[in-house]
């Protein structure tokens, strides 16, 4: 166990009233194949220490990766200087601790214990199977494996000391198919913490099916269509929509969910929960302020049940924090959600598609960072997928845009599928049928 007493002693000596240290360590290994050879191999081993401290009633932040003898001096002097710059009258809070924490060991040593040769053999097998799957596959762009161990430790001057360690691995592959003069690509990521649940043949089949399905893709006439959102797309849009449920956004008047607590913000078909205590790769039993996390409903049959709070935003609203204070840029505490999932419905994707006379199945959207404004909820995104005619998929579609407003979209959900899929963002959503969305193409 590392010794952080120097930081606390120096902080006390320099007049810092309370100090919190957040130490994160990361180990990662990844490698990739191209044309049957390992073309890249990388090894990461890094740690950083983020501090926040209260000086004369204000909070100051400092982060360093230079963890030598000079670190306590750097951290303490920067915390003080940065606290001095603050003139906004926010209360400065460092948390003494929750009465109870639901600790669990989610670290899976099997991931690192599996030999590199076995992991490499999987990559060779994936590449070969992708190449041999169909003559129309012109190139296997990349096949890679990554594994990552993360450890976070929080220590503060109230004597609180918490630690959490987790790991995961993922396989990634992407292929190209020729389509006349044009090229189509498809990729898949398999993320897990259980080495036994990776089935190469299933992984390969999904990529190949997706790539071949895109051959002959064209645009479609511009108009409003009923739209089925694939799990990946529904999860991304839900993530953007719920960013407005951050109490900070609400308090700063930049959320479209402001004033919507205990009101309908989505279709009655939608129930959404946040479950940080789910024992997967994203599990956290305390947030980055040391508050015990808990599972909770966010949207119950369309009704917004709560906003997401950290200590500061909760204090402003006179409520308890929901344990969603996580560090963002510069080590500053923001708001973040873990394991947000939509309760699956009963119908399969095929059964949902069967309900649509003429519509579009959206498999992918691009440009989420630019074509979507989470504050206003307006979006206009490049999309691709399939045209649905007579309750069946008829042909692939690309270079269209799908446009609308997030609030209208989620109020317009008329079916929720039973096909959930966990994303790298930790959001987990099934397919959804939206009554109508503006598509522009030809």
């Amino acid at each position, binding site marked *: 166990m590392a010794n952080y007493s120097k930081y606390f002693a120096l902080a006390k000596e320099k007049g810092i009233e309370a100090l919190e240290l957040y130490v994160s360590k990361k180990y990662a290994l990844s490698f990739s194949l*191209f044309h049957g*050879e*390992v*073309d*890249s*191999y*990388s*090894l*990461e*081993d*890094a*740690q950083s220490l983020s501090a926040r401290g209260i000086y004369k009633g204000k909070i*100051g*932040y*400092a*982060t360093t*990766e*230079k963890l030598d003898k000079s670190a306590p001096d*750097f951290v303490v002097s*920067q915390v003080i*200087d*940065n*606290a*001095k*710059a*603050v003139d906004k009258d*926010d209360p400065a809070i460092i948390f003494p601790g929750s009465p109870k924490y639901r600790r669990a060991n989610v670290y899976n040593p099997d991931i690192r214990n599996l030999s590199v040769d076995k992991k490499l053999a999987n990559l060779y097998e994936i590449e070969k199977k992708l190449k041999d799957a169909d003559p129309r596959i012109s190139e296997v762009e990349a096949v890679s494996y990554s594994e990552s161990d993360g450890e976070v430790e929080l220590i503060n001057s109230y004597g609180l000391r918490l630690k959490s360690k987790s790991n995961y691995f993922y396989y990634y592959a992407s292929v*190209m198919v020729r389509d006349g003069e*044009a*090229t189509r*690509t498809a990729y898949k990521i398999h993320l897990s913490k259980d080495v036994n649940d990776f089935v190469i043949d299933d992984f390969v089949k999904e990529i190949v099916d997706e790539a071949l399905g895109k051959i002959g893709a064209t645009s479609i*006439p*511009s108009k409003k269509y009923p739209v089925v959102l694939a799990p990946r797309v529904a999860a991304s849009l839900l993530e953007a929509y719920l960013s407005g449920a951050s109490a900070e956004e609400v308090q*700063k*008047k*930049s959320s*479209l969910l402001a004033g919507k607590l205990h009101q309908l913000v989505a279709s009655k078909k939608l129930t959404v929960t946040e479950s940080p205590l789910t024992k997967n790769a994203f599990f956290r039993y305390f947030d980055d302020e040391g508050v015990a996390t808990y599972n909770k409903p966010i949207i119950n049959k369309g009704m917004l049940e709560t906003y997401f709070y950290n200590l500061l935003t909760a204090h402003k609203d006179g409520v308890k924090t929901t344990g969603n204070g996580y560090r963002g*840029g*510069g*080590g*500053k505490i923001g708001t973040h959600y873990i394991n947000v999932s939509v309760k699956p419905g009963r119908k399969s994707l095929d059964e949902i598609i069967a309900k649509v006379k003429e519509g579009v199945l959206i498999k992918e959207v*691009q*440009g989420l*960072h*630019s*074509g979507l*404004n989470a504050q*206003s909820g*307006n979006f*206009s*995104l490049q999309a691709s997928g399939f045209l649905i005619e007579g309750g069946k998929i008829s042909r692939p579609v*690309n*270079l*269209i*845009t799908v*446009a*609308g407003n997030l609030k209208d979209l989620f109020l317009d959900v008329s079916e929720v599928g039973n096909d959930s899929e966990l994303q790298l963002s930790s959001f987990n959503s099934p397919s959804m049928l939206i009554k109508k969305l*503006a598509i*522009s193409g*030809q």
Partner: protein
Amino acid sequence: MISKTIALKVLNIATATGADFAEIYLEETLSNSISLENGQVEASSSNLSYGAGIRLLNKLQSVYGYTNDISLKGLSALAESLSKSFKGPRAVKVETIKKVRVKDLHPIERPLYEVPTEEKIALLKDASRIIQSHDSRIVRVQTVMMDNFKKVVIFNSNGKEFHDKRARGRMAMIALAAENGKIESTFEGPGAQAGFEFFTRDIDYKAKALEVAKSAIRMLHADECPSGKMPVVIGNGFGGVIFHEACGHPLEATSVAKKLSVFTDKVGQQIANPVVTAIDDGTIPNAWGSGNIDDEGNPTQKNVLIKDGILKQYLVDDFNGRRMGVKGNGATRRQSYKYEPTSRMSNTYIDAGKSTPEEIIAATKFGLYAKSLGGGSVNPSTGDFNFAVNEAYMIRDGKVAEPVKGATLIGNGADILQKIDMVANDLLRAQGMCGSVSGSIPVDVGQPTLRVSEITVGGRGGSING
């Protein structure tokens, strides 16, 4: 950060098993950020990034690792662990290391890390006041100043040592306007590889702040943009993101070397309309995307990518250059020591043409004038791209008409290059952050006002076809 003796030892450990090239990239970066909400300082933070990345190459294979422990022990352990990827006899022995002189192309008068915090705060408060006092419908104003000072040292097995210092500063101004439940936000982010003088002398931040405020209010009342295919006139400056996304990324060796790009094997061919000349120039003094040397130690260059519509060259790093049979052209970049470097853009722009912006608008009977663009993305294998329009107007009968909002432009890079049919003489560059395999790096995009004869516009305002 480390001595020649240590570097020599580590490079020779790295090359013991057959690697034909080894490189140590050391970095120490101090970043500061001050953020204001509605004119009050909400948070100030400092971040010290520190570590080393070691890269080994063996023919077409690369091995990369990084650590925060830059002691002889830490670096030796990393080099040894990486060298285990190769199992051959030693091919390279490093005997001596010679320091290469790096010329400083970006003189700085008042380094931001030396400017008193109060001065930066005073400027941010002034910008905030200008935005907020413009209109009562502006409900939230964020002004932020970020600066960083990066010290880089590179040692490689060619016996070379490079030292470079890079200091950048950027200001962000965000205005949020709200009325009757509608919210619009606008952004300006001027930045440079320069000191405080950039903000107080080189640019007019007051005018930029006012424009941010005005634009947010204008967009509050804009109609939804119609959708469909139409001619689009793209404004100068950040409009250059179209070239950056649609053509710049597919011209990077990162995708060209493995023949994955739509522009593979097209050098010497007409890939764009003859009115198009495109340049990537990492040498522009004090520009946001410039450098003295790239992250392999090669001097940055002015690279003409497309001349009068003909593809001249790609952006190449030495490693991908091995597959292509060419040398790197000073275009190798990375966010930090945590990223293996690869070919990236620096300051990329479409060069000035002969028309005037007024002539282009007048020559367009109906279409969209995309005055200011947001970000976008591209799939370099297919060339399909998208980007968001922040501020736009309809063009009717050769005149700029009503404002519209919510537009996205989509298309294919190879196709769009052929359809740029008019280029104006008002070249302007603007700053952005570009994310790709080697991380998020500062880049300039740029272009004069130009017209694309036909592009798909996505919006919520109904189809133009009826």
